Every structure is written in C-alpha cells, then in structure tokens.
C-alpha cells in the first residue's frame, strides 16, 4: 500500500476543510489524520528499507507513459521529517488556540503536497504536488490576518511564484530536450543529448530551488517573511516547506543530473560559502529573535550547498544529514523563541547547541559528516569555512539566548504547558539523534546508495 499516506492525507484534508478548524474537536481530528499518515509513512519506510525502492505506474500504464510514484529511502527520509515537523507545529498551534478555521486543513494539504513531492517519480507530477504545498503555504503565510502578516505573505507569494514559474519552464525544457517526464527516463536520456541546453536547464532548476531554500543571492524575501508570520507558520515554512528546496537539489542534482551538478560545483561552493558567512554576520548584527533565526537559516542552507558541491557519495550523504538536522533545528528554535519559561529556555539552548554543532546535540553530527566529506575531498578551505561558520553561529545563537532567556522581561509571563512539552520533546529528539545516530546514518547511507548506485562509508 505505497499510496496509503497520500490517500489518508488527501481525503483527510478535504474532510477537515469542510469543518470549522477553530473548534478543538476538529483540530484534534486533523492531528489524528496527520499522525496516522506519519505512522503509515513509517510502516512504508520500513518496507522500503527492507525490500528496496517501490514503484507504481498510475492507471496500469506502461513505464514512461503513465505518471509513476517512486518511493526510495531518500523520499521516505524527507517525508517523515516534513510530516513530523508539520505535526509538531499543528499540535503547538492547537494547544495555543487556532485562530483561523482553515488552518488545520491547510497544514494537511501542505503535508499532502510535500509527501507527494517526495514520493513521485515524475518531473511534472513533482511540480503539481509542489504547487499544492506552495498554495497552502501562500495562505498559511497570511495566517493571523494582521496587515503585517499580509505584507509578508505578499512578498512570499510574489517571489515564490517566480521561483515556481522558473521550475515549470525548466521541466518543459527538460521534456523538450529529452522527450521524457519520468525521472528515470530523463536520467537515462540526459547523457545522450547535447550538453549546453541541459546546463542551462540545470542552472534554471538550481535558481528555482535556491529561491525556495533562501540561498544567498535569492534570500531577499526570507527575513521579511520569517519575521512577519506567526511562530507555528515559520516553523512550518522553515522546517517542512524549505525541504522541497534541498530535496529538489539532491533529487534533480545528484540523482537526475549528476554530470551537471559536478559542472556547477564551483558555483555552488562559492554561493554556499557566501551564504554561510553572510548569514552568520547578518545574524550577529540583528536584534529581533526571528530576524536572527531567519538569517541563520540563510547561513545553514549554505552548508547544504557546500556539501553538494563537494559531491560524490560523501557529499550527498552530508547534504541529506544536514538537511534533516537543520529542518528539526529550525522548527524547534522558531517555536521555542516565541515562548517563555525555563523549560523552553533549556530546549532553545539544545537547539542552539545543535545549530552551532556542539555535541551531543544532533547538529554536531551534521558538521562532523561535512568535515569528513571535506577532508576526504582534501579541500582545507572548506574545513576552515565550516569552522568559521560554526564559530559565527555559536556567537549569534548565544547572543540570542542571552537576550531572550537570561534577561527576564517583567511583562511577559510563562507560556502554557502543552506547547512547552512539544518543544521539549523536539529538543529531546535532537539529543537522541546526536547520542544514537546509527539509524539516521544507515538510512542516509541507503538513500545515497539508492541515488548513486554504490555503497558509501558513513
């Protein structure tokens, strides 16, 4: 039943959309739906882990004719990560009281879009699910419905529509040059066609996903949006939706167009390095909590770019791990920073350690594999860069921690209990991944194996 998670989310989203989401009962229903989708994804994941990639061509058509669903370990990792972040944000918002009747349905639709993106084996179908997720995000960004939120939603919509359009154009161009829309087919056809159009297409795809990720030259929308929207929505945007960007770069870069990724590696390396330094320096100079974290996200995606630029199995392995850990970090930090209380402060500190790459938090693991990849590659410049970035992030995270949790604001009182429990649970999860990384490492290893074809040593 490889389509079960999609089925649960799709029917669930339609049913919840008809109900009034501000009522507690309906919000709990949507939590149950999302949780059961997560469980079914985990069951499916166990099956994929044991028996390998699953594939189904819709409608009983032939391979290459019909739309295909193709679920490999990479897709499972991203689907589980995104659904878990969405679930945390949904429970968090339910505990704080949902203010718009459409909110739970939008979260489910976004879950559907993201899961579809990670499960599809067809480039155009990728775009369709991508748009389902993006449209939910457009509406979610205006959640709260104050002028400030509408302003940031407007920026978000305009910039990301441009990104989506670039992606659509590049899919059309891929179809035009290779004559295929299924990713397996495109991958097989690309070496046979002329190189220059494919390089142009790859550059366009890179820009499209760079916009989603908020990579350095395409980052301009990100701070305005992340500071304007509510905590749970920012957690969703940065922890779940941004995964489309890194997944897209790994899938289209490392899997479908590996030759072009290698060709563009110097560009990725430079942009990644600039992102790391720029994000770090900007974060230090900012004062509002969300702004610091927003610039921090710009810096953090730089590491993913650097990992992809290193390339090879070790590089892709590092990119996958870093994306997972970064998604969890950001979701935790954005939720934690909106609250008060010593428990939340501790959770925030764990998240801060994780961003800075201090053991035993999970972020250490991300930095470690990146180090290994860089050393394996023999590029000492990257090692220095990662160290520098780590130092910068240590600095701004603890500036923020001090401002937000040490200097007690008299007017603010401690937040409600349930949201605190969620944040602490996420922090414990980060610690667990840091202390017992074996399952995640093995999964990422298998994902790399699925993409690149040979084994890699973690």
């Amino acid at each position, binding site marked *: *039943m490889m*389509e079960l998670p999609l*089925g649960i989310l*799709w*029917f669930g989203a*339609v049913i919840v*959309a*008809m109900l009034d989401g501000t009522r507690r009962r309906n919000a709990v229903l949507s939590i149950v739906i999302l949780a059961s989708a997560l469980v079914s994804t985990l069951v499916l994941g166990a099956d994929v882990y044991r028996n390998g990639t699953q594939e*189904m*061509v*819709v*409608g*009983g058509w032939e391979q290459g004719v019909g739309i295909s*669903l193709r679920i490999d370990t990479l897709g499972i990792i991203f689907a589980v990560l995104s659904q878990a972040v969405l679930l945390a944000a949904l429970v968090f918002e339910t505990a704080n009281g949902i203010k718009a009747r459409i909110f739970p349905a939008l979260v489910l639709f976004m879950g559907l879009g993201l899961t579809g993106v990670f499960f599809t084996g067809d480039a155009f179908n990728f775009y369709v699910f991508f748009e389902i997720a993006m449209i939910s995000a457009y509406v979610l960004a205006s959640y709260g419905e104050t002028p400030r939120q509408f302003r940031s939603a407007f920026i978000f919509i305009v910039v990301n529509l441009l990104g989506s359009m670039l992606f659509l154009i590049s899919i059309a161009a891929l179809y035009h040059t290779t004559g295929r829309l299924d990713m397996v087919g495109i991958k097989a056809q690309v070496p046979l066609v002329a190189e220059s159009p494919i390089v142009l297409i790859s550059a366009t795809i890179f820009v499209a996903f760079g916009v989603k990720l908020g990579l350095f030259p395409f980052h301009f929308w990100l701070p305005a949006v992340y500071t304007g929207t509510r905590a749970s929505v920012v957690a969703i945007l940065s922890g779940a939706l941004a995964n489309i960007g890194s997944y897209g770069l790994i899938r289209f870069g490392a899997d479908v167009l590996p030759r072009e990724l290698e060709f563009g590696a110097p560009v990725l390396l430079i942009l990644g390095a600039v992102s790391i330094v720029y994000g770090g320096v900007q974060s230090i100079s900012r004062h509002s909590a969300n702004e610091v974290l927003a610039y921090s996200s710009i810096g953090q995606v730089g590491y993913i770019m650097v990992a992809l630029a290193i390339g090879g199995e070790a590089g892709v392995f590092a990119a996958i791990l870093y994306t997972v850990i970064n998604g969890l970090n950001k979701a935790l930090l954005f939720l934690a920073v909106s609250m008060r209380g010593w428990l939340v402060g501790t959770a925030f500190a764990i998240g801060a350690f994780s961003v800075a790459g201090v053991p035993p938090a999970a972020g250490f693991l991300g930095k470690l594999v990146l180090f290994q990849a860089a050393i394996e590659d023999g590029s000492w410049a990257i090692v220095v860069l990662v160290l520098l970035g780590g130092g910068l992030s240590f600095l701004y995270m603890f500036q923020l921690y001090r401002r937000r949790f040490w200097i007690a604001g008299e007017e603010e009182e401690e937040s409600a209990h349930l949201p605190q429990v969620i944040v602490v649970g996420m922090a414990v999860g980060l610690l667990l991944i840091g202390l017992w990384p074996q399952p995640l490492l093995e999964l990422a290893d298998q994902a790399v194996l699925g993409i690149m074809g040979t084994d890699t040593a973690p």
Partner: protein
Amino acid sequence: MTTELYKVSARILLLPTLLVALGVMVKGYADPGDGFSAGVIAALAFALQLMVFGPGELDRLPLIRYVPYAVFLGLIISLLTAFVPSVMGQTLFTHWPPAGDSAPRFGTLEFITAVAFDVGVFLIVFGFGVGVLSSFARAEGRMRTSEERVARARAAEGEAGNTT
C-alpha cells in the same frame, strides 16, 4: 451601464449556457471538451448573471448558495475514482471497464469510471468559479455600502456645519 437589453439577454442565456456546458462535458469522450472546460462555461453563465444583476439578485437563484460546496463533492468523487481501485488491489486510477471491454451505454453516452472523474473535475471548477466570483461580489458590495454610508455621514456633517 446595465440596460434592459443586458438584463433580458443575460436571463435568456442562463439555461442555454448550462446546456452547452453539459454538452461539452458529454461529448468530451469522443471530441474536444471535458469536465474542466464545461465547468468554466457553467461558471461563466453565473458570472454573467452576477455582472448584470449584482450579488443580491444572484442569491435568489435556486440552490446557488450550495454551489461552492460542490468543490468538496467534486474533490471526493475524483479522489474516489483514484483510490477505490487501489483498495481493490489495482494501481491508482485504474479505470473500469478495462481497455478492450465494451462499456454499458445509454444512447451515445458510455458509462466508464473516467466519466465519474470528469464529473468531479466539473464540480470542482464550477463550484470554485461561482464561489470565488460571488464572494468577491459580496465583498465589493459590502465595501460599496460602507463607502456610501461614510459619504452620507460626511454629507450630513457638512450640512450640520453649514447651518451652525
């Protein structure tokens, strides 16, 4: 702006347009046309009513209040045609009857599951079109009445100011 000619032709055109929409949907299995274009045509029929008569008059048409809910019905019908085969152990979107078999007929109309999917698409497009148009029209109407109220209040103030 709205002359009698507009009003009469809008009223006369409503039912024929809906019939054309139905025709486009039905002939979609052998000729160009499908649920999507039928939905657009049907929604346009109501857009014309809205432009000529305004939202107040549109609301008096029978069942119009429930049209936006057709989106949900359509989505569920379309999703069912996708997912029911998967419950029965086939791949998603496997249609019935299978290729090569003859389908039950009613005149020239063939009953295949693809038709059910297309009816769902029709309902989504039609419900969305009418729902969006009428909610915009209502918002516009609200804005206009509140603007009028403000203008009237200002005028009244002005008069009061003149007399004193």
